[in-house]
C-alpha cells in the first residue's frame, strides 16, 4: 500500500504530461483556448478536492494550514478564470486531458482516503509536491505556449508564481516527514 499513492500519482502525472505533449507534438490536435480553460479549472479543482480530504483527515496543524491555503488559493484562481471566460464569452470545453486528470485524481483520492495519521499526512504532502511539479511543468511548457488569447495566457502566467510558492511550501512540509 505504501507505494500505491506514488504509483497512482506517477501514472496520473505521466498521463497528464503525455496527453498534453502528445497533443502538442501532433500540432493539429493542440488544445484550443476553451480546452486550456477547462484543464486549468480542473487542475485547480483537483487540488481543492485533495485539500478537502486533508482538512477532514489530518490532525497536523501545519498540514491543515497548508490545505486551507490550497483550497483558498485555488478557489481564487478558479474565480478569476471563471470571470475571464465569462468576459471572453468562452465556455471551458472538456477534453481528453481534463477528463483523464479528473479520472486519475479519483484514484489518488481513494488511496488518500484509505490512509490515516502520519501516513496520511506524508502521502498528502508527497502528492502535493509531485502534483505541483507536474502542473507547473504543464502550465509553463504546454498550456501557456498553446494559449492564443492574450488575457488567458496572462492569467496562466500570473498563476505560476503561486504554484511555485505552493511547491516550496509543500517541500518545507515534506522535510518534516522525511
Amino acid at each position, binding site marked *: 500500500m505504501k507505494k500505491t499513492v506514488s504509483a497512482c500519482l506517477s501514472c496520473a502525472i505521466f498521463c497528464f504530461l503525455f496527453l498534453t505533449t502528445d497533443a502538442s507534438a501532433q500540432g493539429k490536435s493542440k488544445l484550443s483556448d476553451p480546452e486550456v480553460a477547462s484543464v486549468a479549472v480542473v487542475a485547480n479543482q483537483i487540488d481543492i478536492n485533495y485539500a478537502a480530504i486533508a482538512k477532514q483527515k489530518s490532525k497536523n496543524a501545519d498540514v491543515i*494550514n497548508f490545505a486551507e*491555503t490550497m483550497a*483558498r*488559493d485555488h478557489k*481564487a*484562481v478558479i474565480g*478569476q478564470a471563471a470571470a475571464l471566460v465569462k468576459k471572453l464569452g468562452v465556455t471551458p470545453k472538456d477534453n481528453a486531458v481534463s477528463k483523464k486528470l479528473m479520472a486519475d485524481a479519483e484514484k489518488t483520492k481513494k488511496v488518500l482516503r484509505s490512509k490515516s495519521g502520519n501516513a496520511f499526512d506524508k502521502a498528502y504532502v508527497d502528492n502535493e509536491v509531485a502534483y505541483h511539479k507536474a502542473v507547473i511543468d504543464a502550465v509553463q511548457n504546454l498550456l501557456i505556449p498553446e494559449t492564443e488569447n492574450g488575457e488567458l495566457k496572462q492569467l496562466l502566467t*500570473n*498563476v505560476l*508564481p*503561486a504554484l*511555485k*510558492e*505552493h511547491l*516550496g*511550501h509543500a517541500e*518545507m512540509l515534506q522535510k518534516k516527514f522525511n
Partner: protein
Amino acid sequence: MRSVAISAKGALLVLGIALAQMSCNGTQAPTTHVVEIARMQFIPAELTVHKGDTVVFVNHDMLTHDITEEGKLWTSSKLPPDSSWTMVTTQTANYYCSLHPVMKGKIIIQ
C-alpha cells in the same frame, strides 16, 4: 512593533499630525514607505526605515496574504487582493506570510 489597521484617510491624518509635530519641535518627520505584495513576493523584500516611520503593505497580488512577524509578535489580518495594511515601525523585524511561508521580508530600523 506597533501595528494599526487604518484607512487611507486615516493614514493621511497621521502623516499630517506628524508633519505638524515636526514643525513644532524640529524632529525629523516620519516617512511613509510602501511594500508592494505582488507575484508572491514582498517588494522590496528588505526595507530600511527610521524608527516611527510608517509602512503601508499593499496587496496587488491575485491571492490573499498576511504579514506576520517571524516570532509572531505582531500580525496583520488576512489581506485580500487590492487592500492595504499600515503599521508604524518600532524595531527591526523579519516577517513572512503565514499563509505562504516561502514569502519573506525584513524591515530594518536605521
